[in-house]
């Protein structure tokens, strides 16, 4: 038995602004983690990562990050990814500026 697959989202940084983006099910890049496509299948995750990485004129450094279903959509699991959804803790800069 293979281990249970932890759901993933595809995330990267936007090429022009450098800020954190997530891949949606309809192939948009969103700034909002809850709009990301929650990928429950390992093979599909790899395909989506390849898709994302091929969009080199839009994003940089695409990778798969652990996520879990939440009330409003996917939520990050690891604290690093939680910070990436909002910005630094010393100033209200980054994503939290606009929320």
């Amino acid at each position: 038995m293979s281990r249970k697959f932890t759901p993933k989202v595809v995330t990267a940084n936007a090429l022009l602004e450098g800020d954190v983006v997530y891949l949606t099910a309809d192939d948009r890049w969103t700034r909002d983690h809850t709009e990301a496509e929650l990928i429950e299948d390992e093979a599909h995750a790899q395909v989506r990562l390849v898709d994302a990485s091929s969009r080199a004129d839009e994003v940089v450094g695409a990778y798969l990050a652990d996520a879990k279903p939440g009330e409003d959509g996917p939520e990050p699991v690891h604290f690093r990814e939680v910070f990436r959804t909002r910005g630094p803790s010393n100033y209200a800069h980054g994503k939290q500026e606009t929320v």
Partner: protein
Amino acid sequence: MYSYTEFDEAFVRERVAQFRQQVERRIDGALTEDEFKPLRLMNGLYLQLHAYMLRVAIPYGTLNSGQMRQLAYIAERWDKGYGHFTTRQNIQYNWPKLKDVPDMLDALADVGMHAIQTSGNTIRNVTADHFAGAAADEIEDPRPYAELLRQWSTDHPEFQFLPRKFKIAVSGAPNDRAVVKAHDIGLEIVRNDTGEVGFRVLAGGGLGRTPMIGKVIREFLPKDDLLPYCEAIVSVYNLLGRRDNKYKARIKITVHETGLEEFRDRVEARFAQLRPEFGGADQALLAEIKAQFARPPLQASSLAAFESAYTNDPVFRAWTDTNIAEHAEPGHAIVTISLKAHGATPGDATAEQMREMADLAQAYSQDELRISHEQNVILPHVHKSDLPAIHARLKEAGLATANVGLVSDIIACPGMDYCALATARSIPVAQQIATRFDELKLEHDIGPLKIKISGCINACGHHHVGHIGILGLDRAGVENYQITLGGDGSEDTAIGTRTGPGFAYDQIVPAIETVVNTYLDQRESPDETFLQTYKRVGMEPFKAALYPDQEKQRAA
């Protein structure tokens, strides 16, 4: 102060023009990220957690008021109105947009600054004592040598692809304020038995994953031999340094694995080959550089205003007691402006604050400023009679915190609030420690104490050499902080020792309070510093206080 030659200027402009085209080609899709990444890194542009980051070199930490104003302008025009001064005497902008970066680099070039070799496996910004050219204890100003090294290493064709990055620091005084022993090459200006001035050369120091104290490779190097000898060290390293394993690629591992004797023999052999090739042009250049670093003439004047303020104003007195250092010239002082207001981000300055510091430098400090590796700003040449006026203006600007060298004067790297490599946050830990000790009103009673925090094993926050070091790690998906005690970044460099298991994010500030309280209990008198007490009593009392349950178990 040193200003760029035409050659430098042309070189920097050309690099900016090239980078502008590279950015355009990246944006229009002609360059992939794999192709572009090394190019942007060569120009100091990183991609961090939330945004790009531009790292700008401040060679040996010296800048003039015009340069500081330009840094302020760049922060306002293209960033979020502030900059972060780092432990390598650089400034980092945390929010640049890719398309703006060439303009930022052009604006830097306008004042003779750049971001070249602030990244990559090259010789990085050469750092120096931030009191250079001003300190009372100095044998000679190290900056002309640092500048000579900068010119030699910039775009050096042989050293653009070293096994790993390479850092050089120079100090001109017996009191080491540049942590030279923690550098790939450390240079200490010394006087030998016959009174001749030269360098003690150290190699193979470094912090990071495997901290090592630099080893003396040459006890006394005549000054004229500086470049060929450094070139010999770097070229032997370039040959022997491991390229197969990133974690073993720094010169500290090369020296360790090769053995100091063997490494030294190879360096001396290479030096013998190289020495004749340096025909004296380097010395002519050095003479020109030196003339530009000559200390400006300082005027003597009455100390009455200073003395009266010192006697009558306790706030001013407290500030001078902590933030002023002795100047070589009688009646003068070196002012350290603390960028560590309690609860603020260590090393950050707003554009307004940068402008105010520039104005103060222009009015009172011969137009000079310095950035220290401890993330503060220095006015190096101030007459004491001007101190009350300077203090009053710093107060207005929120820059008069009287805490240099105290518990809240914390070094903290950007950590997981910005850095893509981080395993935990460091800034909020620093903010909370400073706030806590300010509440306790214990800071001045505690006395000299250096806390240094890194957000990962790379140790940009110098935690190994903090009297109290804090290292943020990721332990099974939770932030966890290890404490080390007894580190020392001075001429008596020492690597701190771990207390034991780490502490959770919400436990680290209480744990530091416990460490400090233990010191207060243990010290023989208020004159015994934290480090002295630690050296006398050792780790045990601190362990017992930090891990009471384990102590009980052991007793049971």
